[in-house]
């Protein structure tokens, strides 16, 4: 008993609060990445293995535009637009021929895309980590830390993008098309909805979301060609834990996992804190294989 009390007393409260904030910040970026992935999966039955690479490419485009113009927000928008176009092109060329085939083919094809993109980035940009300076340089005091406002802005912005996207799905014309296609592909087609183009649009939106999160993350952690795999892995864990194709579940799962990882890194080395998310995944698979936040059908 004493040991337990000692352990509880040994928890540094200030550190806990700081890590809570950190966890929510990375959690929201992860939620943005994962919701793109979930969207693409939920609507097209495509597991986008290249999602992490689109994130990475978005971050690099951000680096380039910021270096050229000095404007971070322009970089964010440009990068999202360019990657959206790239995503649309990739979808038309590689995924459209696979419609109607075993969904496993799509994971293979997107794996091929990720190979090409990652090696292109390695070849083009080298292995050196690049960084964007934070567009908002002011700080506020959080205990003994000077906490950057930028992180709070990133959190709000990610939430705004996800929220805006949700409203778009709910009320926008294209959003209604997307939901109709999810519910019944054949019927949607019969009602005159151009289903193949809905797929292309969805993939483009998902890609843009990945790119935007890449640019938002760039000032926090730097940009490297191999960053994609880490993110896609985390996003995969999030969508399995949250329930594949379940937007709300992925967001909750992203925040849950990031918080747990942030808390774990109070005590262990951050490179080992990743194991926490693996444990969450294992427990989910054991007890609720359809996802923690799945609504029972």
């Amino acid at each position, binding site marked *: 008993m004493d040991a337990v009390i000692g352990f509880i007393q040994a928890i540094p409260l200030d550190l806990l609060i700081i890590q809570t904030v950190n966890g929510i910040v990375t959690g929201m970026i992860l939620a943005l990445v994962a919701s793109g992935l979930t969207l693409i999966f939920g609507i097209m039955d495509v*597991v986008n293995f290249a999602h992490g690479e689109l994130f990475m490419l978005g971050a690099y485009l951000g680096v380039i535009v910021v270096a050229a113009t000095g404007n971070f927000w322009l970089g964010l928008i440009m990068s999202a637009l360019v990657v959206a176009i790239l995503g649309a092109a990739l979808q038309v060329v*590689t995924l459209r*021929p*696979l419609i109607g*085939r075993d*969904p*496993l*083919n799509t*994971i*293979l*094809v997107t*794996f*091929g*895309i990720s*190979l*090409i993109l*990652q*090696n*292109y980035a*390695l*070849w083009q940009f080298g292995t050196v980590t690049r960084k964007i300076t934070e567009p908002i340089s002011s700080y506020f005091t959080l205990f003994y830390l000077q906490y950057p406002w930028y992180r709070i802005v990133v959190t709000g912005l990610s939430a705004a993008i996800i929220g805006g996207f949700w409203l778009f799905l709910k009320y926008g014309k294209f959003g209604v098309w997307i939901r109709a296609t999810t519910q019944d592909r054949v019927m949607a087609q019969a009602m005159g909805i151009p289903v193949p183009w809905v797929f292309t649009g969805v993939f483009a939106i998902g890609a843009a979301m990945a790119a935007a999160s890449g640019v938002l993350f760039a000032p926090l952690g730097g940009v490297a060609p191999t960053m994609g*795999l880490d993110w896609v*892995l985390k996003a*995969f*864990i999030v969508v*399995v834990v949250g329930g*594949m194709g379940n937007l709300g579940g992925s967001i909750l799962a992203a925040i849950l996992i990031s918080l747990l990882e942030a808390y774990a890194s109070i005590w262990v*080395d951050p*490179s*080992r804190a*990743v*194991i926490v998310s*693996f444990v969450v*995944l*294992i427990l989910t*698979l*054991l007890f609720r*294989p359809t996802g923690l936040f799945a609504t029972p059908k």
Partner: protein
Amino acid sequence: MTRHTKIYWAGFAVLMAVLIVAPLVLPEFWRRFLTEVLIWGLLAMSSDLLIGYTGMVSFGHSAFFGLGMYGAAAALLMVSPPNLWLAIGFGLIGAAGAALFVAYFSTRLRDIYFAITTLIFSQIFYVIIFTWTKVTGGENGLIFTRPHFSIPLLFDIRFTSTTLHWFVLAVVTGSYLILRRVTQSPFGMVLQSIRENEARTRAIGYPVQRYKIVSVMLSGIFAGLAGVLYAVQNEFAAPDFVYFVTSGDTVIFNVLGGIGTLVGPIVGAGFFQLLRELMSRVFGEQFPYLIPLGFIFIAMIIFLPQGLLGFARRWLNK
């Protein structure tokens, strides 16, 4: 003997003869290259049991390969003088343990979910091996000396690159024959019926999940064997091989060569390594050979999903 079996075994014999003679005529570099292709081929073949026969794409074969490698490393470093058979035993135990762990959890999910969870689970092993520096050497890996080829009380010889090639060839051929037998056995038929229609297989009364677990474990054990061979050939174990890239390569070998053929993945591995070698010779070491390979890979999935040996699939499985 039917005509088919006659032709099949004749072809088998010719191929074996070529592979046995090859190290005697090839220069040192290509001798090692061929041995390595056989090892990668074994890894790819093990994963074909899942992809081609059970219909489950594994993106986590690096874990089994790596555990085989580190298992062998443990045996070679702890016991002096290093013993080949002990290395194989340890490697197989390591790989089987990893496979049991992965199989138990990931077979609860199907299709894409299976692929994703195998990937995530292989990454668990990578993180453990990468961060547990005291035991695994962390980023630097482990270096050891190659064991002798010995049969107790009979003989004990040092491996040359030629005899090592023959040893690897014997192991890979043996594995091929075993896997071929497995896929043609009633057990293999059940696996194939899971691939064709899982719900119906379950309805007939087969315990599908148990079959899947056994198939993942079998596949993992052969992948571990490939890891042991690789460790013995190169005298080191490194965390890079436990990383996702190895699993990705394994999937590429399968798609290039043709899934569901067992030989195809070996051909795919050879094709991949040859292309890589040629490109680095023509365009220089720095050339990102994975870019053109990625294009070939995508084109194959779209236009030739059967792979290079797909045309012979039925014939090879007869």
